[in-house]
């Protein structure tokens, strides 16, 4: 854990971005947050925008360091975590 000082970068896309009210934020990995699921619990109580964004967790997808990641994925200082709805490109 040489790197505990590096902040987590959190990105939001599509309606998650609209509900949260920001596209990107950075903060230190909060105490007790070890996985994506932990981070969602932490964010969901931050305020009404966050609560709305994470209200239906089944509609939220996640990537850690630009790779799709399950709720159980471990988080580390310096990670880039992105939250977004199921993709609709093509």
């Amino acid at each position, binding site marked *: 854990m040489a790197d505990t000082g590096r902040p987590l970068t959190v*990105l939001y896309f599509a309606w998650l971005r609209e509900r949260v009210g920001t596209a990107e934020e950075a903060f230190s990995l909060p105490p007790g947050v070890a996985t994506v699921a932990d981070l969602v619990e932490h964010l969901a109580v931050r305020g009404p925008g966050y609560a709305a964004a994470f209200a239906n967790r089944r509609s939220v997808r996640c*990537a850690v360091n*630009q790779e799709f990641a399950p709720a159980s994925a471990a988080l580390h200082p310096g990670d880039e975590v*992105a939250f977004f*709805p*199921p993709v609709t*490109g*093509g």
Partner: protein
Amino acid sequence: MATVRVQEADFDVSAELAALTAGRTDIGGIGCFVGTVRDAAAGRPIAAMTLEHYPAMTEPAIRRIAGEAAQRWSLLGCTVVHRVGRLEPGAQIVLVLAAAAHRGEALAATNFLIDWLKTRAPFWKREEFADGTGVWVEARETDDAAAARWGGAAA
């Protein structure tokens, strides 16, 4: 080996084909798919569609899957161009080209790549109606089913 671009600008299919096949005489067929913006969604007319993506993830992810497709179907070349930004009905959204010695491989790879783009590439579409309101498009279950046909490689 794959050409992958995410851009706001339109693309020209003949120019992309020419770039893919330039100087090559070992290609027997090129499979191609062009996606376009439809004027209605679930029966409701749309004025435009806006595509958002995750820049740091999109091109590397497409490049990786194009590499997988190239191996799996012995491709001789492959191009994926995906537009982002605001697009009106009739506009081109996405281009897939897959070149191979034989048509079966070229068309299978084209099919695989567009299925993958629809279900695994980090793009999101927002439909805009004539009155200025809009909705984010919901993922279609049939798209997931189409991608699941391909097994592990699509995940």
